[in-house]
């Protein structure tokens, strides 16, 4: 383990970097705690500044002022629409499971109340803290708050994974390149996070200051704000081979160095809501790649997936609640911006998650469905009823006629960097069976063939 030392405090101050594994807080915290806000109150005795800083971050606000599809607005998980449970708006009790706070169940939540900050989800070092209770982000009952609070420390991968690997309500449902396998991966899974080797924590790349964690998800960081890159450590001429270095201007490092994602843990590739609520699973379901759950519908899960490739300049576009759709066409819920003529864009790997989502046939927009709770779809399996509740809560008109339209959502692939022996080589892209769709990327054909013909 790195950064572990026995240190004698001479002045009562010890540099944070020594404390990666967690400073014993037993002497500072004695409880007893009846609920989690009392733990936060104890943390605040020494860490009020940290709470204030945290409360300005997207982990707390779930939104940030940014340019969205050309317009400046507040945007984030609070009002976004995705290709999974669609929207958080009427499903807070469920979605707030991953809010780093306690009790955001409806619009009355007080975002200025410091005691509602959940310090433990990121700073637990015992691995015993859980928020999986479908109860607005309160920890589950069996959590021993005193034990956890006395053993806080700097986050390790397992902390971040508790939400980032489990979004979409199952391991690796969303990202594809972030799953529980990253808790303790070996080198074949990720060369940097290799638990028996470099053992990077998330914040080794996602540099953090004042609780502001750098980096961002494609679907919520649309303006490219605070993004990170491999060049923080590696320069742009990293290869011993000149020809490879000529690629770095237009090809992201990830493209060659992450040849597959969803290593070890499968990821959800397709979610068809139109079949949700059936008592019998559709015939094609095999329980492995093709799965069925009544509340969810039909799903496809895959392991060791070859990425899709697209130009990406760090910015993204999204479907916004209320945007009109053409139900015959695939609507992109979140997608990268950039093209071959954009000098700031590079070819980048993506997971493309496809689906079918419920929409209003007359108004021609997607529906923010009410899924969770006694009157939600997951309980009643009644589309019309849950739609009405969801649309009313969101202040939107519902015609009374619903249907299902095809969608897709892009996810950046940045993790699960393979050992260099497994990186793509020339023919993986430029061979007859190469994995690039050159025409779709804007080339007249395989650029390598052009050069050899010119010769």
């Amino acid at each position: 383990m790195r950064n572990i030392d026995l240190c004698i405090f001479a002045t009562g101050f010890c540099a944070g970097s020594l404390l990666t594994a967690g400073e014993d807080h037993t002497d500072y915290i004695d409880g007893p705690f009846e609920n989690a806000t009392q733990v936060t109150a104890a943390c605040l005795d020494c860490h009020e500044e940290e709470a204030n800083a945290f409360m300005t971050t997207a982990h707390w606000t779930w939104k940030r002022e940014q340019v969205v599809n050309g317009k400046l607005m507040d945007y984030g998980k609070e009002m976004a629409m995705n290709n999974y449970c669609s929207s958080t708006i009427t499903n807070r009790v469920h979605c707030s499971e991953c809010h780093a706070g306690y009790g955001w169940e409806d619009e009355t939540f007080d975002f200025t109340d410091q005691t509602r900050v959940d310090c433990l989800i990121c700073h637990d070092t015992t691995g015993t803290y859980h928020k999986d209770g479908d109860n607005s982000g309160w920890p589950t009952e069996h959590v021993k708050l005193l034990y956890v609070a006395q053993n806080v420390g700097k986050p390790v991968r397992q902390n971040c994974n508790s939400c980032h690997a489990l979004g979409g309500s199952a391991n690796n449902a969303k990202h594809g390149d972030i799953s529980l396998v990253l808790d303790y991966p070996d080198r074949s899974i990720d060369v940097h996070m290799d638990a028996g080797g470099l053992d990077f924590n998330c914040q080794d790349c996602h540099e953090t200051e004042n609780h502001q964690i750098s980096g961002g998800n494609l679907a919520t960081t649309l303006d490219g704000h605070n993004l990170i890159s491999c060049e923080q450590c590696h320069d742009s001429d990293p290869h011993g081979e000149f020809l490879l270095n000529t690629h770095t201007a237009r090809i992201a490092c990830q493209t060659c160095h992450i040849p597959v994602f969803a290593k070890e843990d499968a990821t959800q590739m397709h979610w068809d809501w139109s079949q949700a609520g059936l008592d019998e699973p559709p015939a094609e379901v095999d329980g492995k790649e093709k799965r069925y759950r009544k509340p969810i519908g039909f799903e496809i899960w895959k392991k060791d997936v070859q990425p899709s490739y697209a130009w990406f300049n760090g910015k993204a576009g999204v479907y916004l609640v209320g945007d009109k759709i053409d139900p015959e066409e695939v609507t992109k819920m979140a997608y990268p911006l950039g093209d071959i003529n954009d000098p700031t864009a590079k070819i980048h790997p993506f997971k493309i998650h496809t689906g079918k989502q419920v929409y209003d046939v007359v108004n021609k927009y997607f529906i923010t469905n009410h899924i969770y709770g006694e009157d939600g779809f997951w309980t009643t399996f009644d589309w019309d009823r849950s739609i009405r509740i969801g649309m009313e809560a969101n202040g939107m008109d519902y015609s009374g006629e619903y249907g299902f339209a095809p969608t897709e959502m892009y996810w950046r692939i940045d993790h699960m960097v393979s050992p260099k022996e497994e990186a793509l080589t020339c023919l993986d892209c430029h061979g007859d069976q190469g994995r690039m769709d050159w025409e779709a990327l804007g080339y007249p054909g395989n650029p390598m063939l052009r050069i050899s013909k010119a010769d």
Partner: protein
Amino acid sequence: MKLRMIGLLGLALTAGATLALGAEGGNARKGKYLYKNSCKECHSEGSEGGELTPMSKTMKQWDRYFEKKADEHPGETFGEISEKDMKDIIQFLYDHAKDSPSPETCG
């Protein structure tokens, strides 16, 4: 950071020795990793200890094994593993036992 205390701080994680065996206090996700590294070589199909996964026993059986029978385990392995790591391994086995809410083989 405004830390008020002055003193000598060991950085070892508190072992939580007061917590009961098996059922609680261990880090199951770390336990999965430790199990793979320390146990699987002898406990895969066809190897000397026989295949063993969390689903090989019920929660109660896991508790009983580690309370009563662990001393009989052949070889040095159990003696070489720290108390804290063992606790994490037990938590992994227990949390994913045959009759647990989330049974699991060791993938």
